[in-house]
């Protein structure tokens, strides 16, 4: 194995690890915030979101170590997070009207 291969493998693993650990946490957190926006009282649905956020976390870790390029994994994660935050904003905006 040449040096550049080693370097590439290191980058690949690092990108997957950060996607799994940080990306997973970010998606779960966005999910909790989205769930909080689903009810006026916040608490009920938010706790439901906390209780279910681990499904997202585990799914992201599994996905991050599947045979897909890290770039694609990060792309999917960013789309997921942005979609959840956009939905949160939309819900709050709609309910406020």
């Amino acid at each position, binding site marked *: 194995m040449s040096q550049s291969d080693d370097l590439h493998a290191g980058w690949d693993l690092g990108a997957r690890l950060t996607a799994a650990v940080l990306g997973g946490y970010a998606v779960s957190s966005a999910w909790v915030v989205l769930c909080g926006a689903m009810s006026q009282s916040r608490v009920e649905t938010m*706790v439901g979101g906390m*209780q279910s956020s681990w499904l997202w976390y585990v799914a992201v*870790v599994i996905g991050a170590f599947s045979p897909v390029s890290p770039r694609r994994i990060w792309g999917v994660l960013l789309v997921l997070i942005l979609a959840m935050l956009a939905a949160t904003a939309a819900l709050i905006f709609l309910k406020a009207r």
Partner: protein
Amino acid sequence: MQPAKKQSGAGKGSFRQAQAWLHTWCGLWFSWLLYAVFLTGTLAVFEEPITHWMTPEHHAHERAEARQAGTVPQAQASLSQRLQWGMAYMERQHPGADMWELWPADSKGGGDLRVYWFDREGQYAAAQLDPKSGSVMDASEAPKVRQTLGGHHFVDFHYQLHAGQLGLWIVGIAALAMLVALVSGVITHRRIFKDFFTFRARKGQRSWLDMHNAVAVLTLPFQFMIAYTGIAISCSTFMPAGIAAYFGSSAEALKSFQVALNEPGKPQRSGQAMSVPDLESFVLRGQALIGQPVRAVVIDYPGDAAARIGVYGWNDADDLSKRLSPTSGMAMFSAATAELQQLRLPGGVDGGAAALTQSVIGGLHMATYGGLLLKWLYFICGLAGSAMMATGAILFMVKRRAKHQGEFGASTSMVYRMIEAANVAAIAGLGIACVGFLWANRLLPVELALRSRWELAVFFALWMLALMHALLRSPSMAWRDQMAALAVLCLLLPVLSFVTTGDHLAAYLRDGDWESAGVEIFSLAVGVAAAAAWAWMRRAENLKSVRKQKPAETSQNLAVAVDPGAVRKESLS
């Protein structure tokens, strides 16, 4: 299934091969910590019996109480008298507190009289009053008992490693890693049902794999449940994003979240003074409403006109075993108008579906339901989970002892050596530390200052010693030494207890003290198992050296048999 060289690695090969890689490494790096969490968590199922065994000074007292149970109880202060004493103490000592909490009596109207309040820093503080006179009991007057964490050591260690919030996070991360390892492990297995019935004994690596699969597959639902509920119990700590977004991130905000979740109707202080009315009528009404004897009376904002009086009940053990949500009944009254503001029946919650789910999650994890039989089921499943992690960690090395895989480049051999040592110290060493904790309980002098801390120090010191021993000895010798130590400590525990306290197994059985008997019988069982493991390892090692000796001359000296390196040199020459 040995994936080709190029196909192993993060995200390499087919989906299943990639998951196998994740399972191997996520499993390996977390297996030692998870094994420790699982084993201590399993012991924590029997927290009370262990505490009972570790406080032998209480045994005589409890026996006397049990003998008295049938007879007329000695003159004890009435409930109303106890409430008055509690209130008198609070009014005298803590008039400005935000909350008073009286625990007047046990479920039969006897027992201790305790009071709690929030002090100026908002911390929970406690005092114990004499149930015969109402005066404050000085800790030094209490009968001399050994200070010990008892079985709670295992509870605390298994969820926060005695390291507070930091430990909670570490265990939480490990629990998530366990969920990941379980999911990736299931994906890795294509023949999950076939493996269910497969066990190939005495086949080396295959046997370890079969054992790993068998314990994991048989108890898979339990493993998922216990890891998930373990995380979800502390979900508001682990996932604060929602609270931060809608309530803010200060301590104040966290409190208002807790109030919104658990006490949606909590009033504000009014600012008008009003003394707390006599509690007895509230307590009697509350008991009738919830159908439970009073456990605690909580007064929010005492001295204010907006004060509330909450009456909480004692759960009945039989009733508790029949429901998943372990909450007790509660009736909340306005102190000013005596009007019922809120009623919670046993098993209910004050919030909605999410709060009820949270309560059930707690009940599921801590086995508050189902009674003794379920506790044993949890205990056995917990042991199976520990075995799953132990066999997984061992399997990793057994595979690599047969075929070096060079994952760590030039330092692979060194890393393998570390992993071998970590396996010994994590699996056998933790057992030594746990039983050593019980030994310390009997050997440390009762008068020792900070005694419960010393017990804990012995636990951690033994564990560290086991790690150092495993690093210094060759792996196979380290396994045998530590198994022997575990066997000796476990088998001699009843003897030690007899020598130091005079209690013994036959007496426990005669007196019907099943809790103490259970602790010592389990210790003996572990001792026998460890001795068997030791004997098996010795036989296996002897067989190996005999096999190695065969090709060489039979007249080899003894050094060859004990030193495999000598054999290798011999065959090279």
